[in-house]
Each structure stands twice: as C-alpha cells, then as structure tokens.
C-alpha cells in the first residue's frame, strides 16, 4: 500500500496541466488525503511551458517531495525544462503522450532513467472520448485513478469545479475522457502495481496557499489597512485583501508604486490602524527608506516579503531564501527590526498574526519572510484553533497620561512608550524621520540620539527569550544538528524523520524568529553539537553566516546551501546527514 505518491506533470500552458493538477489536488483533499501541489512555469504569460507536482499522502505532507513516483510528459521539450522541479528516478513511472515518441536519452542523469516508460495515445483517446485532444489531461487523471486507486468520483467532482462554469457539455466530455483513461490503466496495469492507502477519518481541512493564509492571518489579526503594489509572487495577498478586507471594515489601496504602497501603510499606522504591505525582493529594496522611517518613528508595520530568485529582477517565479540579509540589515543607521519566517502554508497564518503582534507590541516594522514556494503552493491545512491565537494591540496612553503632558517617546522601563494617534485629544505629537527627543522635537544632540538608539533596541530585548518562536525536535544531547528555515524547513523535517529512522543521533532546530538572533536559544541548542548542517536556499547560505556573526558556531556546523529554483530533496539531505554522522 502506498502511503505517499508524488505525481509530476509537464506540458505547455494550453494543455491545462496545472488545472489538472488542481483537480487532482482537490480530489485528494476531499477524500481526506494530505496533499500539496506546486507549479512551475516558463516566462510566457500564457502558453509557455507549464508543470505541476502533486503529492498525496495519508500522513501530513511536509514538502513537495523528492523524486517523482509518476511523471507525465505531454511533450519532451517542455518536460525537459523542468529538470529541477520534476526529478526522475529509476522507480519513476514515466507516462507520456505516444505521439511525442520515446523519451530522449538524456532525460535524466545516468542511473536514474525510469525503468517503466508507458506511452499512451492521449490525444487519440481524448478526441475519441471527449471530442477534442485538449481533454488529454482528463485522460491522464483517469489513468492515475486506474493505477493508484484515486477515487474516480472525487476526480469527477474536481472536473465539475473546473469546467462547471463553461457548461454541462464540457463537464460530460471530460468525464468520458476520465473514464477512458481509467479503462486504459486497468487494461494496462503497472509492472509493480501499487494502490494508495485510504486515509483515516479526518477533520475538515482547508485547501489553501501561503498567500491566502497570509491575507487571512492579517484579517484575523485586525489589519485595517493594506497598501501595496503588484509583484510576483506576492500579488495574491493584495488581491485577496481587496476582495475581503472592506467587509471587515478595512481599506486596501493598490498604490502607484512600491514606495507609495508602504508609505500609505505607514500613514495608516500613524493614524492608529494596524497596517501591512506585501511585496518581493525588488519591492523590499524600494521600501527600505520608509522602513527606516517606521523604525525611528516607532510605528507598527507588517512588511511581507515573498522571496523569489534574486538579485534584481532575478527569477520572479521561483523560490529562493536570499533576502535574509536584506530583511535584517537593509537600513542606513542602526536599526533593529524583527524578522519572522513561516515554513509552511499552515504556519503562515499563525506567523502573520505573530508579525502583527510583534509590530504592535514593540512599535516597529516587522518583516515576514515568506517565499514563492510556500506562498503559491496549495496544500491541505489543518484548521487553526482561532481561540488559541492571541491578538495584541499597541500600548495606548491612558486618559491621565494624555492630560499630564504626554510625551510620545518617553522612556519607560520596557522601552515601549504609549503611542497616541491623530484624533486622540491630548496626544498631539510630531512623528518624524529626524532624530528626536522624548517629546518628538527634532534634535541633533549625540546624547539624546544615543539614548534613543538604546531605547529602540532595548525594547526588543524580550524577543531573546521567545523559545516559542523556535521548533526543536530530537534529543537535547544529540551531537548532530540540522537547522533550517522557511520552505527548506519542510525538507529538513522530513530528512530529520528519515535520519531518526536510521538511528542517526540528530536533532532539528527550525527558527521562526530569524532576527534578532536569540543567542541563548542557539547556544543551548548547539551546546551538545559537534557536526551539523544549516539548510537553506541561497548562494551565500545567509542564515549560516548570520549565525556565525552572532554566535560561536561549532566548527563542524557547515552550510548546505545553494541558489534558488533548485529545491532540496529530503533524500539528499539525509545522505549529507549520514556523511556528517560518519565524519
């Protein structure tokens, strides 16, 4: 019985490969499977090469998976463009359109060419069953049903969702194509037949992606203003909020540029509302100045960066984790701002709320570092227990404080000063980017400036103790460490389980709070460690370097990092861990 199945499909945009993947995903989700789907494209808006991966499992899915169990190629030219996303192994069942001819010899690295290659006359079957060869992907889905036991009824429901709006005829035609595919699969069983296990009874789940979870988390957290600008792969956050936020009493502004987007959000925060912006790397660069303004003016702000390949325009449609340095350091002057990173679609909701909480509590911009994979992959998500998620508000002055000569930037034991907003009588103050004294009056005094820097840094000290913003698994005394963040953490978690199954003495650390570096948490973690890996998707291995800047990392802890658009696989991380354990 198969507990886990990874299907990859590639064709051109007109083939509807991604739509088919979505139908499969929806079918799996409705049947109670845990499922996850990623997509990958060429640069054309429509009709370029197009691919998807769907992973279904009876256990929670932590990442898109490694080598494909099933690969579907509608043509070879497009399939080959996705070498990184659709890796083949010798056990992969490679299904292809028979018209495309046999697979090219260099389709996979030597030793990994699939042993089972099945040519299916997809176009013919589609034409005959549905009247058009465009129904090829429905034939494929039917075949998957026949081979692996994905319930046909569930697939049919998925088809209805996709084609329903276009008319009953189209739905019926594709149903026939499904059936034809299933019949073909039953008539041509696999060499080593495997059937998907049935998932147990499950709670209702969500089917969502990171951007949707981010927007939803923002709504739940009480966001009342979003200002932003379209940029791949973050635009969906703004789009979703445009539809939904006004019903909750909020305002969404698609501004004229990135700077105006974050500028309007800072204005809204100054006016007392929880405010947010979302962007990717290039937009973060543009927003840098205003982020500094928010830091010195001590204004709460949530800034979501859905990372993509960089630098500059980079690779807009692929994930990378190379904006960590920017999130942490990009500012002139001495600036300390919290940086959080979700690791999955599911925790994006909770961490977005956390970002708002930190922003409000500490009156600071907070960067939420998502990435393209988490943001745009669709996965089944457990319903969060909303009653357990706290929502915090900024400290506002009391009536007494407003009557008594209110000082906006008064020093307090915590470093956090009560913050007023326009409309609040007695709370009038000047917010400014220029350095200021306790009242907000501009100053050039070194002593006052030093005191203000101390205050702005000191107020964030409690973050050093936030062990709840770290996930630690494994034995406290394990000598082998695996550290990872963001989307790579999903791969790390699976590698960790596989390593433990092999009895490797490994422990795992996944920070959700990347900055400030919670030194004691790391010190405690690394106390027992002699060797380890910091797993991340960036050429420089940015977290590894950041940790070395703040800690004495054990010498045996090295960086396992590479440029984006080449996601890690759990099996390759496992092999590296094995080597580290033997070193």
């Amino acid at each position, binding site marked *: 019985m198969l507990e886990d199945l990874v299907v990859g499909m590639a064709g051109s945009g007109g083939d509807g490969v991604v739509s088919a993947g979505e139908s499969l995903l929806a079918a799996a989700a409705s049947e109670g499977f845990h499922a996850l789907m990623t997509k990958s494209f060429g640069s054309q808006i429509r009709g370029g090469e197009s691919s998807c991966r769907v992973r279904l499992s009876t256990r929670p899915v932590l990442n898109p998976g490694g080598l494909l169990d099933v690969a579907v190629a509608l043509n070879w030219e497009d399939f080959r463009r996705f070498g990184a996303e659709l890796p083949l192994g010798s056990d992969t069942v490679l299904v292809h359109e028979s018209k495309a001819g046999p697979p090219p010899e260099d389709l996979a690295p030597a030793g990994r060419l699939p042993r089972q290659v099945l040519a299916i006359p997809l176009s013919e079957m589609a034409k005959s069953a549905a009247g058009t060869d465009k129904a090829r992907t429905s034939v494929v889905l039917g075949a998957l049903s026949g081979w692996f036991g994905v319930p046909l009824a569930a697939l049919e429901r998925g088809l209805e969702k996709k084609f329903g709006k276009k008319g009953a005829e189209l739905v019926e035609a594709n149903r026939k194509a499904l059936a034809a595919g299933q019949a073909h699969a039953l008539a041509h069983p696999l060499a080593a037949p495997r059937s998907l296990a049935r998932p147990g009874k499950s709670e209702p789940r*969500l089917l969502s992606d990171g951007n949707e979870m981010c927007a939803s988390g923002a709504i739940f957290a009480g966001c009342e203003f979003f200002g932003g600008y379209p940029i791949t792969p973050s635009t969906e956050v703004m789009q979703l909020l445009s539809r939904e936020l006004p*019903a909750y009493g909020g305002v969404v502004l698609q501004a004229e540029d990135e700077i105006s*987007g974050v*500028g309007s959000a800072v204005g809204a925060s100054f006016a007392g509302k929880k405010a947010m912006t979302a962007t990717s790397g290039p937009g973060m660069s543009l927003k840098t100045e205003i982020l500094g303004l928010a830091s010195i003016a001590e204004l709460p702000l949530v800034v979501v960066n859905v990372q993509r390949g960089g630098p500059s325009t980079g690779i807009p449609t692929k994930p990378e984790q190379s904006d960590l340095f920017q999130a942490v350091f990009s500012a002139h002057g001495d600036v300390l701002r919290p940086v959080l990173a979700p690791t999955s679609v599911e925790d994006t909701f909770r961490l977005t709320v956390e970002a708002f909480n930190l922003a409000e509590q500490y009156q600071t911009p907070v960067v939420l570092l998502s990435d393209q994979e988490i943001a745009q992959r669709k996965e089944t998500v457990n319903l969060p227990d909303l009653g357990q998620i706290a929502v915090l508000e900024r400290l506002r002055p009391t009536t007494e404080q407003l009557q008594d000569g209110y000082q906006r930037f008064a020093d307090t034991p915590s470093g956090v000063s009560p913050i007023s907003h326009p*409309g609040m009588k007695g709370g009038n103050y000047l917010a400014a980017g220029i350095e200021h004294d306790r009242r907000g009056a501009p100053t050039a005094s070194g002593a006052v400036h030093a005191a203000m820097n101390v205050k702005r840094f000191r107020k964030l000290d409690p973050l050093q103790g936030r062990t709840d913003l770290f996930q630690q698994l494994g034995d406290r005394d394990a000598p082998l460490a695996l550290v990872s963040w963001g989307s790579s953490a999903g791969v790390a978690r699976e590698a960790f389980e596989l390593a433990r199954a092999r009895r490797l003495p490994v422990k795992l650390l996944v920070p959700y709070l990347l900055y400030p570096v919670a030194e004691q948490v790391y010190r405690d973690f690394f106390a027992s460690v002699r060797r380890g890996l910091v797993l991340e998707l960036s050429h420089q291995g940015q977290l590894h370097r950041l940790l070395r800047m703040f800690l004495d990392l054990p010498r045996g802890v090295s960086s396992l990092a590479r440029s984006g658009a080449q996601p890690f696989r759990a099996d390759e991380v496992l092999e590296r861990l094995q080597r580290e354990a033997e070193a």
Partner: protein
Amino acid sequence: MNAALAPADFKSPLKPIWCPGCGDFGVLQALYRALSAVGRPPHEVAFVSGIGCSSRIPGYTTAYGFNSVHGRALPIAQGVKLANPHLLVIVAGGDGDGFSIGGGHVPHAIRRNVDLTYLVMDNQVYGLTKGQLSPTSPRGLRTVTSPLGSLEQPVNPLLTVLAYGAGFVAQATPADMPGMTALIEEAIRYPGFSFVNIQSPCVTFGEEEQQLRAHKTRMKTLGSLGHDPSNQLAALDLARAYGKELYTGVFYRNPDPPPTYDALVLQRQAELQRGEPRPRARVLERLVQR
C-alpha cells in the same frame, strides 16, 4: 467667525529654524489663521510633510505632525486619511520634495482625489541642502550645481497639477497675507484634493527678484484679470505664464466636485458590511473543504 479656536491655539512652542526673512514664516502664520477659521481642533488635524526647509512646518503647529522622508508625504498622507477619514489632512513640502523626487506621486494623489490639501512652498531652489537647482528653477539659473547656468526647462507646477485634473488649484504669496490666508482656508474647505502653490522665497539662496518685496509689485490677482475659476481651459492658459507672471488666486475650482476617494471607500464598506463589520473570526470559513 469661530472664536472658539484662536490662531494661537495652533502655534507650537517649537521655534522655527528658518532663516529670518524666510517666506515660510508668512505661510505658517496664514496656516494658523486658516486652521482656526476652519475650526477643527488641533488633535483632529494631521499634518504630513516630506523633507526640506518648508517640510519642517508641521512641528511648528500643535496638530499631529508627521515630518517624513523626501518626496513621500503624499502617499503617507493618503494612508492617514484613508485610515481615519474624519481627520483633516494637510500636506506640505517644497518644490523639490513635490515635483522632483515626489513627482511620481502627484498624478496619483490627484486622480485618486483623497480629500486633503497640498501646500507647496515653491522657491525655485533646494534650500535645506544649500542652494542647488530645483525642478522649478528657471532655465539659465546659476546655482552650486549649475555653475554655468541650468540647461533645463523648469516644471510648471500649476500646469502640471491642472493637467492631471485637480479640482482646486491656486497660487499665493506671503506678500499678500490676507489673500494667501483666504486661499489656504478655501483649499482646506474644498472637498477633494486641493493644491496651493505658494511662492515662498528663500532669503538665503534665492535671487533678489524672487523676494517678497518684488512680489508686491509683480503680483496680479486672477480676479483682477477677470478670470472665472470654473473655466478649466482658461485656467490652463493662465497657468502657462508661470515663471513669467505671478498670478495669485484660484486658477480652477471644480464647480461640481466628484465624490472623494475616501467617501467612496466608506460607501463601499457600508455596502459590504451591511450594518457592521464582519467578525474577524469568520475569516477562514470560505476556505474549509467539505
């Protein structure tokens, strides 16, 4: 007149750092008077500025002020107003802040038509940084960054703002304090984006011909020319004389102001909420797979 709020109620204890003789002192005085006439208390006024000598102005009033970063006052101010439409929002800055680095935000603030008032203190120079060329500097002007004379045609702020479709466009000078005070008040009262270009000379880096004494002789009121401010084409024509003539008064006032962006947003929210805002705990309902 509303005696409940005196101009002095808007004066903050902070002493302006402007050079004695700066035109901005007159603007500040006019602002105190205009605000007291409009009658909103200081805590309901949000005053946003960019960077420059004139951008220091919010701190010299008792309103909530936000002296932000160069060129970005308009987006920030729109965020303030949209977050709380009940506030009175004023934006101030110089010609560089508004038409150089901030130039990209001007068309959008105008077409968006959030209800705010934009006061530009136009002195054809960058004063704060010691006298460089500005986007409204006349061609041929010698400055520290144009020692051989500027090669560029200046931007015409009046024509630009009119062409982008602003509903209220005026020009003023501190040389006519009653006139300027009335124009600022009128701009504040106009429902929508309103713009007043204020010829506020720089006494340290400006030319002699630019100083207020010269304004007194040069200035002509649009009223004295028989201009009808509801005539947008005539306004555009008169605006072309920027740089050659100093026309003061209202160039254009839309006789039928369209609804403001903030009013439309409120309307939309009301329609979507049907009574009250949706409870936030319901946010995930739509996404549950059944």
